[in-house]
Each structure stands twice: as structure tokens, then as C-alpha cells.
């Protein structure tokens, strides 16, 4: 039994998922208002929220969900049309619901006073009479996954009604029960748009009522017969439906025939057998009886089909703490196994060595799998961006076509969360400043609607996210003037466009000619860059004047694993994220000699950079002056570069990052820790917080 608190937490988390589904459906409906699958999914999502909120007696949630459901029902049954206004209102209600869930989670009691307006709007929209109707679609247009749930449910209701009415003497309780079954049947069929089924069940219901419209108390022989045949007709219709759904190729799970074709059966053979299938006969049986395939082959294909089916469904929620424990234990397993592999006695026992090597392969797979469990698709993050794009464009009266690609790319949950803010900022910027007003676009010979594309792809152990618009692009000349005015560049500096664009990432830099509510307050791209860098990522910009702007964000797949450089000062070892190291400069003799002087500098790629010694920064006292310097790492941090002096680079190392206790104060330049191959703890340096703040800012 779940505790009621657990149940409630489950309700909150599931309702959030449902809202997300509803939202993404609504956003798709915006571009494709006729998509019956999206209307259905959205309806079901809100219907579920309404149902479960009723269980917890959350009247506000229930009312809001009910308002949406009513409108969506009308849209679904083609009584009213999908309009921009109805989608906007539904989206607003989804936002209200989401806020209410947050309130419930935090124990805040929010006022429902303002709900009246939105509920009235929903009702109004639901009661509007359609002028132009969508063409009525056939029942086969229903998404096959809905049909899959629908058929067993409906068959059960028919069986139940039959069993109640089968006896020659029927009690009033039996009639009541049968009426309930038929009523539900009618409801479901109306809801899912099966008019024929709905009509038959309504007819059966009518048979169970007398002339005054009261439920009958007795059934005579003739009525009994009529009812039986009505129920039989219902069943025949359902069986017919089941057949069309099974043979439909659009299902999420491929049909047995398709699998057999994939496994090498000629398509013509399958098509031939399928065309001769008698009703109720199974393809597998027929194939075996005609000796087209062996029984074993059919069973294999069927088990493959089952695997696909279960793969399409099974998810379970696991607490992140358990996942972290798992990652920790596996990491420890790998390290302790390394001790076995390194044992000098191992090579002399070949059998043991082979077994140990096999183990290490399994462990690598296990570690990969454990880390994969922390990954989530970017869908949820991208949905938020789509929503913001919609809202911003609506507010500014701009026309956009927002296109998302690769939202199924998986990434560490913390990185997915960390990307939300910078992407939100970027999409608002793009719509506010990145695209031109409609008149301007027409003058420039561009389509009225601006296209903004957000895409994600995985490349190696990184995910690349691109946001591109087809707006006017960045004007290098304007950036130069602005940078000159702010004293960011020298008047005689000859920077080309490529060098000028990154200036927009500097704090306080904004080329916007006007300040708007949406963006352009001078805080902006520098925050975006800072956010991306804190995820150990990079952001680049490319732009063609008149053609558009393209931002490319590159972030690691996971925060759990970090590519680091193992460095040494004195007897201590530290881990520096490789992504922050631009260049390594091997020490020269004079560098150590000038160690005691303040403000040492070094030249790197045409720039003079200040040198900071790691021992000095961390306050480490080392006796041996030879062991504190010798190698310079050129580090890129938030606002520029500096050279970090260490004694030695021991090598590159991929480590599993472990957080440090937040309870114990420490140097801000230490961001985390990892277990080194020898089992000791190594501390991970944070290049952005190593320097004293006065130098940093």
C-alpha cells in the first residue's frame, strides 16, 4: 500500500507529465489544427488529470481540467473548430494548472478567483457553432494505440451485459447493471467517435426502457430476443474493428508479417497469405499450415514482436538517489576490479587473467548502462522552449514557424535542466530582435513567417544544440560601433565579423535599439554564455547579414563523467576539466626564477595573460620550490583567459564526478571530486572560481 503522501507525490509528478503531453499536442495543433491524434492525446491527458484530481478533491484542478476537456470534446467531435484563440486559451489553462500543481506541492493555497474568466472563455469557445466543419473522418483514423485499449474494454462491457441478460428470468438489478454497461459503452463510443457502435448501444439501452422511458422491470421473450441480437451485432462490430486495427500498418508495433519480411521472407508470399486469411484465422498458423515457415520461426518472430511491444511501454520511476548510488557502486566496482587486473600475480595465471578481462568488459557495459539511466530526452526542455516561442510571438504579434528536431536526443537530467534558462533567453531574444517585422520581411522578399529551428544531435560524448533563425542576422558594423562606444575594443583594432560576433557575449553588451519587455535590458547573452559554461559547455555564433543567425551550443552528454587533466603541485594532485584548457605551455627556466614576482605574464596566441600559481590560489604551502611550477595551462573562463601554473601534467583521465559536501565550507575553486585510479580522492578544479573575485570580475 502506498502512503497517501506517496500517492499525492505520484499524482503531482504524473499530472505534470500529462500537462506536458497536453502542451506539446496543443503546440502541434497550432501548425496542424486537424491532427485528430493530438486532439485525442490532449483530451486524454486532461481527462486523466480531471479524474485523479477528483480523487484528491482538488476542486480547482478539476474545474480547470474539466473546462479544457469540454472544449476539446467539442473540437474532437467536430462541433467547433480549432482556432488560434482556442489553442491560446487552452495553453493558458495548462499554465494555470501547472502553477496550481506547484502551489499544491509547496502547500500554497492559491486563489481561484481569476479562474472564472478563463473558464467562461473555454465554455464560450465550446459553445460556438462551427461554420466550416472539418471533414468527418472514419473510425480507422483513430490512433491505433487508442484502439488497442478500446477493444478489450468494449468487449468486456458487452460480455458483462450479455451475462446479465442471458437468463430467461431477469431481475431489476440485472437490468440496472446491463443499463450501466450499455451507458458506459455508449459514452466511450461517442467519445472515441464510433457512431455506429454508439447507435447500437443506444438502441439496446432503449430496448431496456418502457414506453414511459423508465427502466423495465421484466423482459418478455420477444424483447429478450431483440436484446440478444443487438448485443451480437455490437460484438460483430467490435471484432471487425479489431481486425482493421491489427492489419493497420501504422501501429507502433509492427505486424508479424512485417517482422517476418524483415527476417527475410519475400513480401509477396506474406501478401498472398494475408489476402487469403479467413476471418479469425491467424497469419502465423496459416503460414505454418501451408509450410511457408517453420513453427519455430513464427514463435521467434512473435517473441520479437512481444519484445517490441513491451519495449514500447515499460517505464518505471526510480528515485535519483538510488540511481546515484548505483553509479557510485559501479564506479567502485570498476576501480576495485582494476586492482585485480593490476595484480602482478595475474599474468602468471592465464585462466584467471582471461576471466578477469571478461569481467572488465562486462563492467564497462554496466557502467555505461548505469550512467545512461540518468539520461532523459531533451523533449521536455524543448517543449518549454516551444511554449515560450509561441507566447513571445503571440505577445509581439510576430508570425513564426517554430521547428524542433532531435528532441529525442538523450542527455543527463541536470544538463537538460541547466539548458532551459539559456535556451529560453535565446528564443525570446531571437523572436524579439532576431527576426524582423512582417513588412520588413516582405520588403526583403522573405516569407511572411519567420522560421526558427531548434535542433539537437549527439556527436560522440557531446550534444550539439543549434538554434537558427532566418532573420536579418547580426550587423558586424553595429557591433563594432557599440563595442567602441563601450571601450571594449581599441579604435584601431581590425576585427573581422567572426571576431566581432563573440563580443555580444560580454556583460552589458546589447545592440538592441530599443528596450522591450521581452529582452534587451543589457543582461542577456553574457548570462547565456555563463550558464552554458557552468555546464562545461561552449556556445558559438555564426551570422550572415540578411540571412539569419545561428547559435551552436555544445554540452557534454553527462555531468557524471568528466574528461579531465590530472595535474600535480607539490605532493597534491588535482583534476582540471579538459574543456577549459586552451593550451599547455611547457615551462622555461626563467619562469621558475621569476616566481616570487607579482603580476607575471605570459604570451599566448598573441595575447599577454596573467599567470597565477595553483599553490598560491589554494593557499597550499610547498617546501620544494621546484615542485610548484613549470607548466602553464591557458584557461578559458567566464570573462577571459589566464595562465595557471602547475608543476606537472600527469595525464588525461575520464572520471566519475562526485559532489562535495555542501555542509563543509571550502575554496570556491573546488567544484567536486572523483576517485582516482589508485583509489584516492582527487579534487576537481573549477576554472571559473579559482581566481580571487577582484581579478575575476
Amino acid at each position, binding site marked *: 500500500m502506498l502512503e497517501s503522501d506517496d500517492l499525492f507525490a505520484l499524482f503531482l509528478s504524473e499530472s505534470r507529465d500529462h500537462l506536458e503531453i497536453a502542451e506539446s499536442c496543443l503546440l502541434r495543433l497550432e501548425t496542424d489544427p486537424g491532427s485528430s491524434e493530438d486532439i485525442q492525446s490532449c483530451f486524454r491527458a486532461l481527462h486523466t488529470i480531471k479524474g485523479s484530481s477528483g480523487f484528491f478533491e482538488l476542486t480547482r484542478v478539476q474545474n480547470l481540467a474539466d473546462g479544457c476537456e469540454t472544449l476539446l470534446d467539442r473540437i474532437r467531435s467536430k462541433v467547433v473548430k480549432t482556432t488560434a484563440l482556442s489553442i491560446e486559451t487552452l495553453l493558458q489553462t495548462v499554465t494555470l494548472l501547472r502553477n496550481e500543481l506547484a502551489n499544491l506541492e509547496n502547500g500554497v493555497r492559491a486563489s481561484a478567483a481569476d479562474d472564472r474568466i478563463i473558464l467562461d472563455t473555454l465554455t464560450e469557445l465550446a459553445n460556438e457553432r462551427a461554420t466550416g466543419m472539418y471533414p468527418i473522418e472514419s473510425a480507422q483514423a483513430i490512433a491505433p494505440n487508442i484502439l488497442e485499449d478500446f477493444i478489450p474494454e468494449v468487449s468486456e462491457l458487452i460480455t458483462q451485459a450479455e451475462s446479465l441478460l442471458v437468463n430467461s428470468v431477469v431481475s431489476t438489478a440485472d437490468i440496472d447493471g446491463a443499463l450501466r454497461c450499455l451507458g458506459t459503452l455508449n459514452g466511450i463510443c461517442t467519445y472515441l467517435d464510433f457512431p455506429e457502435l454508439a447507435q447500437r448501444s443506444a438502441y439496446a439501452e432503449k430496448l431496456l426502457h418502457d414506453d414511459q422511458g423508465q427502466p423495465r422491470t421484466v423482459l418478455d421473450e420477444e424483447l429478450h430476443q431483440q436484446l440478444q441480437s443487438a448485443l451480437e451485432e455490437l460484438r460483430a462490430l467490435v471484432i471487425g474493428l479489431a481486425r482493421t486495427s491489427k492489419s493497420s500498418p501504422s501501429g507502433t508495433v509492427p505486424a508479424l508479417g512485417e517482422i517476418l519480411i524483415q527476417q527475410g521472407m519475400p513480401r509477396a508470399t506474406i501478401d498472398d497469405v494475408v489476402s487469403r486469411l479467413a476471418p479469425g484465422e491467424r497469419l502465423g498458423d496459416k503460414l505454418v499450415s501451408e509450410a511457408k515457415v517453420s513453427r519455430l520461426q513464427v514463435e521467434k518472430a512473435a517473441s520479437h514482436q512481444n519484445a517490441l511491444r513491451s519495449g514500447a511501454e515499460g517505464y518505471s520511476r526510480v528515485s535519483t538517489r538510488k540511481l546515484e548510488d548505483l553509479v*557510485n557502486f559501479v564506479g567502485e566496482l570498476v576501480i576495485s576490479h582494476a586492482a585485480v587486473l593490476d595484480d602482478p600475480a595475474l599474468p602468471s595465471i592465464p585462466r584467471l587473467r582471461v576471466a578477469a578481462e571478461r569481467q572488465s568488459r562486462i563492467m564497462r557495459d554496466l557502467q555505461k548502462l548505469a550512467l545512461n539511466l540518468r539520461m532523459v530526452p531533451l523533449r521536455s526542455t524543448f517543449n518549454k522552449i516551444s511554449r515560450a516561442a509561441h507566447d513571445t510571438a503571440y505577445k509581439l504579434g510576430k508570425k513564426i514557424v517554430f521547428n524542433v528536431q532531435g528532441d529525442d536526443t538523450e542527455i543527463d537530467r541536470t544538463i537538460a535542466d541547466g539548458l532551459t534558462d539559456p535556451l529560453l533567453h535565446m528564443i525570446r531574444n531571437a523572436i524579439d530582435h532576431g527576426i524582423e517585422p512582417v513588412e520588413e520581411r516582405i520588403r526583403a522578399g522573405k516569407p511572411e513567417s519567420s522560421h526558427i529551428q531548434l535542433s539537437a544531435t549527439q556527436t560522440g560524448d557531446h550534444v550539439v544544440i543549434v538554434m537558427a533563425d532566418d532573420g536579418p542576422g547580426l550587423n558586424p558594423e553595429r557591433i563594432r560601433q557599440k563595442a567602441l562606444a563601450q571601450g571594449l575594443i581599441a579604435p584601431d583594432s581590425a576585427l573581422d565579423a567572426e571576431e566581432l560576433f563573440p563580443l555580444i557575449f560580454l556583460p552589458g553588451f546589447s545592440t538592441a535599439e530599443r528596450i522591450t519587455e521581452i529582452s534587451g535590458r543589457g543582461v542577456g547573452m553574457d548570462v547565456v554564455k555563463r550558464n552554458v559554461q557552468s555546464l562545461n559547455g561552449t556556445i558559438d555564433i555564426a551570422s550572415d547579414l540578411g540571412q539569419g543567425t545561428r547559435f551552436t551550443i555544445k554540452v557534454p552528454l553527462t555531468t557524471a563523467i568528466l574528461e579531465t587533466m590530472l595535474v600535480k603541485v607539490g605532493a*597534491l594532485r588535482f583534476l582540471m576539466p579538459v574543456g577549459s584548457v586552451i593550451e599547455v605551455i611547457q615551462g622555461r627556466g626563467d619562469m621558475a626564477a621569476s616566481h616570487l614576482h607579482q603580476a607575471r605574464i605570459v604570451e599566448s596566441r598573441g595575447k599577454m595573460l596573467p599567470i597565477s600559481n595553483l599553490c598560491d590560489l589554494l593557499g597550499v604551502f610547498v617546501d620544494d620550490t621546484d615542485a610548484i611550477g613549470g607548466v602553464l595551462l591557458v584557461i578559458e573562463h567566464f570573462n577571459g583567459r589566464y595562465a595557471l601554473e602547475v608543476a606537472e601534467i600527469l595525464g588525461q583521465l575520464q572520471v566519475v564526478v562526485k559532489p562535495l559536501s555542501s555542509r563543509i*565550507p*571550502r575554496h570556491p575553486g*573546488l567544484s567536486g571530486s572523483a576517485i582516482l585510479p589508485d583509489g584516492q*580522492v582527487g579534487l576537481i578544479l573549477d576554472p571559473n572560481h579559482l581566481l*580571487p573575485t577582484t581579478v575575476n570580475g
Partner: protein
Amino acid sequence: MTEPAADTAPDAAPALSAQETLSAYLTFRIADDAYGIDILKVHEIVALLPVTPLHGSPPAVSGVVNLRGSVVPVMSLRALFNLGAGSASPHRVFIIIDHDQELIGLAVDQVLEVVRFTPAQIGPSSGVRAGMNPAFIRAIGTGHGRTMHLLAIEQILSFPGAQVQSP
């Protein structure tokens, strides 16, 4: 534990009441003194592990250790109590405690035994060694031929006076 039980059974009694079970302590030695810590706080006892210093942390924090894959901070109670480094004792161990679902190691000279104090055997702290913060001692347990300082873990882990050292 506001009112002491009137008829307290001797601690050798086979059946212990809940209250008595609650006052079980793991006792240990640092320098010449015996200390006790609520047994329910103790996660495990481990031999000394290699310590990586944690820069910018309070002086009593020796650093972090690898406890079967988890990175756990460790403190030296000698340093905390201003008892000096002491000679390298062969018995030194870490008592790993579980505080607010976070593991923290305490380095002590030697672990002694688990003892049970009846409420009557626990009295207010009368005074501590010079140089030691009196807030770190919650009470004094007397019995079993010893006097033991019972630690106030919350106080010890609140790092009084400690602040993030800005470089």
C-alpha cells in the same frame, strides 16, 4: 528523557526498555579522555584511509576520503578539541557518522566499547579541558569506571566560527 525512571534496572538486565536502548553510546579515546557518541548516529567504523586535503575548509576538517566509492569528509577531533597532533597512534580509526543523511568521518585515537547509560548516569557537563569549546560536549556520562564526555554532534558539525575562506 526529562524524568529519570524511578526503578532503573542494572544495565546487565537482559531486557532493556526503549529509553535505555536509546542511551547506548559508542565510546572512544582521544588523548587521555574518553568520549561517547550516540550509537544511532554511528554508520560504521573504518581503519584510517588516505586523506585528500580540502582547501579552504575549517582547520578541523582534515579532508575527504574514499569510502567505497563515496567521497566522505573527515574531521580530526584532536584538531577540533585543540589537543595537538599527538603521536601517531596505531589504533587511530574513523568513526563514520550519519548526520542528516550525510556521512562524515571523525578521526579518533581508539575506539573503546559500546556502553549503556541509564538516564540517572547522565549529568550535565561540568567543565571541559582548556582550549576546548564547551558547546561540543552535551553531557557527562558516569559509570563503568569511567567518566565520558558525550558529544553534541550538531554543534560540532555546525562549524562555529568557520567561514568560507575567500582567497
